[in-house]
C-alpha cells in the first residue's frame, strides 16, 4: 500500500472518512459511501425504536463490515459519563470493536466541544482499551493533552459542525499538525471539495465529513468530488508547493527567441 493512513496501527488507503447521517435513504447512504472511497464510516448510537417492525432494515445491513470499518461516535453527548456509556454500548454492539470517535459537546446551538469533559472521557476510554479518535477544538495545547492521554488521532474542527464554512483557522491547524505525533484529521466544517483539498495541503492526515456530502444537491457526485479533492490535496502536500513570490512575476516561457516586431529588421 502506497502512502497509507495509519490509525491505531492499522493501514488505510483512503484518507477520507465519511459520516452516514442525513442521507435521503439507506440506498443513497450506500452509494455515497461507495463513491467516496471511504474505508472508515461513522455511525451514531441511539435507542432502538419501540415497536420497530421486525423486517425493517438497519443501516449496518447496507454497509458490509467486510468493506467498512465502523467508527461509532458519541454525537449528542454533553457529559463524559454519557459519552463513555455510549461507547461501551457501541463496543458491545460491534463485538468488541475498539476504534471509536469521541465527541463531547458543550452547546446545542454551535456544537462546540466541551474540552474538560472531552479530556475526562478520553482518559477513561483509553484506560479501558479503546482506540480513541477525538473531536476537539483547534487549540494546540488541548490537542497535545489528548495525544498525551493516548488518543490515536486528534480531530480538530475546521469550523462548526454542519456549517460548511470551511477552514477558518489554518494557522491553528498547522500548529497542531506540526506538533502531533498521531494523525490529525479535520473533523467538521468542510463545505466543498476545495476545503478538503486545503485541509490536506496544510498537512492534515485525513478529513472526516458528513454534511458536505449529504447536503449537496447530488450527494453521490459530491462524494466522488471529495475523494478526488482529498487525494489531490494529499499529493500536493507530498509534492511540496512552490514558494510564494509576492508581487514578483516569473514567466514560465523562455524570455529569449521572440519573433521580431513587424517593420523592424532584427
Amino acid at each position, binding site marked *: 500500500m502506497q502512502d497509507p493512513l495509519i490509525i491505531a496501527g492499522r493501514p488505510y488507503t483512503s484518507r477520507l472518512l465519511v*459520516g*452516514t*447521517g*442525513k*442521507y435521503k435513504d439507506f440506498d443513497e*447512504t450506500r452509494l455515497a459511501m461507495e463513491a467516496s472511497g471511504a474505508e472508515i464510516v*461513522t*455511525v*451514531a*448510537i*441511539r*435507542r*432502538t425504536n*419501540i*415497536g*420497530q*417492525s*421486525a423486517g425493517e432494515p*438497519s*443501516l*449496518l445491513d447496507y454497509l458490509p463490515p467486510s468493506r467498512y470499518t*465502523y467508527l*461509532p*461516535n458519541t*454525537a449528542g453527548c454533553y457529559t463524559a459519563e454519557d459519552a463513555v*456509556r*455510549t461507547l*461501551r*454500548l*457501541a463496543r*458491545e*454492539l*460491534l463485538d468488541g470493536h475498539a476504534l471509536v470517535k469521541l465527541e463531547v459537546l458543550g452547546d446545542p446551538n454551535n456544537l462546540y466541544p466541551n474540552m474538560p469533559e472531552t479530556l475526562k472521557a478520553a482518559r477513561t476510554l483509553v484506560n479501558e482499551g479503546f482506540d480513541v479518535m477525538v473531536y476537539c477544538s483547534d487549540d494546540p495545547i488541548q490537542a497535545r493533552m489528548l495525544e498525551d492521554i493516548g488518543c490515536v488521532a486528534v480531530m480538530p474542527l475546521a469550523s462548526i*459542525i454542519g456549517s460548511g464554512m470551511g477552514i477558518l483557522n489554518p494557522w491553528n491547524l498547522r500548529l497542531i499538525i506540526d506538533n502531533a505525533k498521531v494523525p490529525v484529521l479535520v473533523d467538521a466544517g468542510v463545505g466543498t471539495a476545495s476545503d478538503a483539498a486545503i485541509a490536506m495541503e496544510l498537512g492534515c492526515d485525513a478529513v*472526516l*465529513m*458528513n*454534511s458536505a456530502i449529504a447536503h449537496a444537491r447530488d450527494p453521490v457526485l459530491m462524494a466522488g468530488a471529495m475523494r478526488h479533492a482529498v487525494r489531490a490535496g494529499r499529493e500536493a502536500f507530498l509534492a511540496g508547493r512552490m514558494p510564494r513570490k509576492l508581487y514578483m512575476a516569473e514567466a514560465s516561457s523562455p524570455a529569449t527567441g521572440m519573433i521580431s516586431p513587424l517593420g523592424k529588421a532584427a
Partner: protein
Amino acid sequence: MLTVTFNGQTQTLKHRLTVRDMLDYMGLAGKRVAVERNGHIVPRAEHGEILLHDGDSLEVIAAVGGG
C-alpha cells in the same frame, strides 16, 4: 407483576423475563442491539440468562446514521 423501564418507557410485566425474552417481547428478536441494565452492559452471551428484576432500567441501542 413487575415494572421495568425500557428506553425510558415503563413496561409492566406479568412475570420475570430474561433480557432475551424482553427483547423478543419488544419486537427486537434477532436484531443487532446492545443492552445496558442499570448502567452496566449485559454481554450478548448472557441475554438468555439474566433475569430482569422489578425496577430495572434498560437502555437498548443500535447503530444509526450519524457523522
